[in-house]
């Protein structure tokens, strides 16, 4: 970690090797397209390489890297106009048109992007509502609402 922060490319490649699973997994849950998710994951590591010297505590690298990934995804979502209104009422979302149980990824794909992000960070990554608000820059109340509504929808859709 220290070597990577000093510009050692081989040390950073080892960090990428160890952390790629969690970052690619996180972004694949957020994106519907695995290729796009991997592209954003690569961009996450490039940004991390550029900003590594700003990281104060080596032990916080994992959480910091996830924050970078969230920022990269949010930038992509804004460019793709996926976040036209993060406060939009999620009631407009339709339930899956399949009967019976569906898998987690398909259920996540049905959530609107802000809800998907909040649900994945809360249930998948174990972040608190405050940490999600910090990572996304959204108000705490909005985050709580997205987690509650998105979580309730997932539970409903994933009923056995």
């Amino acid at each position, binding site marked *: 970690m220290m070597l990577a922060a000093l510009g050692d490319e081989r040390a950073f490649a080892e960090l990428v090797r160890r952390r*790629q699973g969690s970052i690619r997994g996180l972004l694949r849950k957020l994106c519907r397209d695995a290729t796009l998710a991997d592209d954003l994951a690569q961009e996450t590591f490039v940004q991390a390489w550029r900003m590594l010297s700003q990281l104060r505590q080596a032990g916080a690298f994992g959480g910091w890297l996830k924050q970078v990934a969230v920022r990269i995804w949010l930038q992509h979502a804004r460019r793709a106009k996926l976040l036209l209104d993060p406060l939009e009422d999620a009631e407009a979302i339709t339930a899956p048109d399949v009967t019976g149980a569906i898998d987690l990824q398909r259920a996540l794909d049905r959530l609107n992007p802000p809800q998907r992000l909040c649900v994945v960070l809360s249930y998948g990554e174990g972040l608190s509502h405050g940490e999600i608000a910090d990572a996304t820059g959204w108000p705490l109340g909005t985050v709580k609402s997205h987690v509650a509504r998105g979580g309730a929808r997932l539970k409903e859709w994933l*009923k056995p």
Partner: protein
Amino acid sequence: MSDDSDLIRLFAEDDSAISDEAFVSAVSARIRMRQYAVLAVPTLLTALLLAAVWATWPAAYVFSTSVMSGLATLGAMVGTLANSQLGMTVALTLVATGLLWAWLFERFVARD
């Protein structure tokens, strides 16, 4: 599914290990490309500037000397103003406005 813990468990079960060397190589290649770009862009701009100077000589010489002398005159005027009471007042007003603007921006815009 009714409990949060069921959902958390489902997320944990869904975490398949994604890991391959091609991804590491792709990240390294992307970093190398950015490093080359950081070096290449200023080099290219300098080369283009030199080519433009060579192509337009002596007009480039006349233009650059007149720009330099204009800048020197402007610098002397700013120096004279900065040493006057009016100059100090203007500078302080500008700094205060800048600080106020930065505070207002941080307070009302950046948090949106």
